[in-house]
């Protein structure tokens, strides 16, 4: 066998290999995620900047909530292809970017807090976003505060799945999904019942992570 014989064979093989063509997904369907600000004057989009990853989350050690939040973090991290989101649970709340308390959402402390509420049959949740317009930009004051609380006595009712769904939903708010959807199959549905992230949740989360953010996290 010589080059005269092997070259055509190799070119034929290369041609066959090159037939395939990669096509990226369209990220459709998705839903509106941006926060409508002050009656429609503006819409705010947020994602964690790369230099803040991994996001530091402190979780009150009650009702096995750290495990539920960790499951939610794992789910959301799995939704991204390029490392756009990562989070770790930390033991010091003073330096945390997100603070999760196992308590009924208290009255809003200040007027600038924008609260997103969630209500399930067995438990409830809320995420507080403290947003202010400072000088030339919108700022999200950290930490983002999340609340998850039982509506029944957890000693007599197994609320594990309810906590799991609520933690996943509230984490969705913390990574920039600021609206509730109208589709009960989405984890970001107002009263979520989905056991996992929908294709719409994943598509939207990926869009959020690459959409130009006009809400900047500050401390």
């Amino acid at each position, binding site marked *: *066998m*010589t*080059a005269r014989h*092997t*070259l055509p064979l*190799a070119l034929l*093989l*290369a041609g066959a*290999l*090159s037939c*395939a*063509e*990669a*096509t*990226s*997904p*369209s*990220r459709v369907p998705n839903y509106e995620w941006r926060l409508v600000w002050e009656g429609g004057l503006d819409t705010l989009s947020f994602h964690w900047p*790369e230099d803040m990853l991994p996001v530091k989350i402190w979780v009150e050690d009650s009702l096995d909530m750290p495990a539920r939040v960790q499951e939610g973090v794992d789910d959301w*991290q*799995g939704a*991204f*292809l*390029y*490392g*756009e989101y*990562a989070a770790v649970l930390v033991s010091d709340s003073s330096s945390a970017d997100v603070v999760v308390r196992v308590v009924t959402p208290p009255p809003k402390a200040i007027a600038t807090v924008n609260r997103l509420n969630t209500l399930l049959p067995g438990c409830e949740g809320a995420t507080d976003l403290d947003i202010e317009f400072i000088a030339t930009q919108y700022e999200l004051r950290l930490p983002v505060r999340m609340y998850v609380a039982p509506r029944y006595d957890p000693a007599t009712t197994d609320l594990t799945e309810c906590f799991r769904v609520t933690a996943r939903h509230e984490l969705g708010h913390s990574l920039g999904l600021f609206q509730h959807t109208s589709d009960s199959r989405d984890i970001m549905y107002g009263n979520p019942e989905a056991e996992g992230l929908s294709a719409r949740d*994943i598509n939207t989360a*990926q*869009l959020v*992570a*690459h*959409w*130009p953010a006009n809400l900047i996290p500050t401390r």
Partner: protein
Amino acid sequence: MRIPYAFPLAAALALAPAAPAAGQVRLTAMVGVTGSSALVTDQIFEDIELKPALAPTFFLSASLPVATRLRASLDLSYGSSSADLTESGQDASDLGSIGVLTAAVALEGPLVSRLSWRLSLGVIEYLPSEETGLFSDGVPVAGLFGAGLDWRQPLSERWSGVAGVRYDFHLFTTPTLEAAGFSGSQQVSRVGLAIGAAWDFQ
């Protein structure tokens, strides 16, 4: 093209025949750099491209004559670099490092003067440092087609200096990309430049 578990087999085949044919074997070791085209191209608001950075690469081969003016060669290469993500041409993030291991069988023969050609077929395996994101379910071994040119300068009876250029082509995808809706596979071309030495058994 996916060939799960083929890499260990190919590597074993690549190493096994060298000893029995020791009387005619030529061992070549080279070091160089390899550049790659994008592993993934995507669009989320803006164009996204994931590409390994220039990778320091080691090349090893063992060859023996199989006909007049023709040698068969068994090749291994390994390189490692960062996996860089760019968004609209701007650096976006670094997805950790990624090792690239190849094993191939090749044919080589003289071209002109001290220049020789080579054509190869083999497998390529990506070894990301972090199994997250698009690498979270691993990266399947893929088939590889390669070609190259070597310049060989005799230094002594047994030793010669070698400078080579390598090109290879393969298709890249991962189970995570397929699950995310990517259809088909990304065509990936790599070019390597290397220098080294060859030792001929007498």
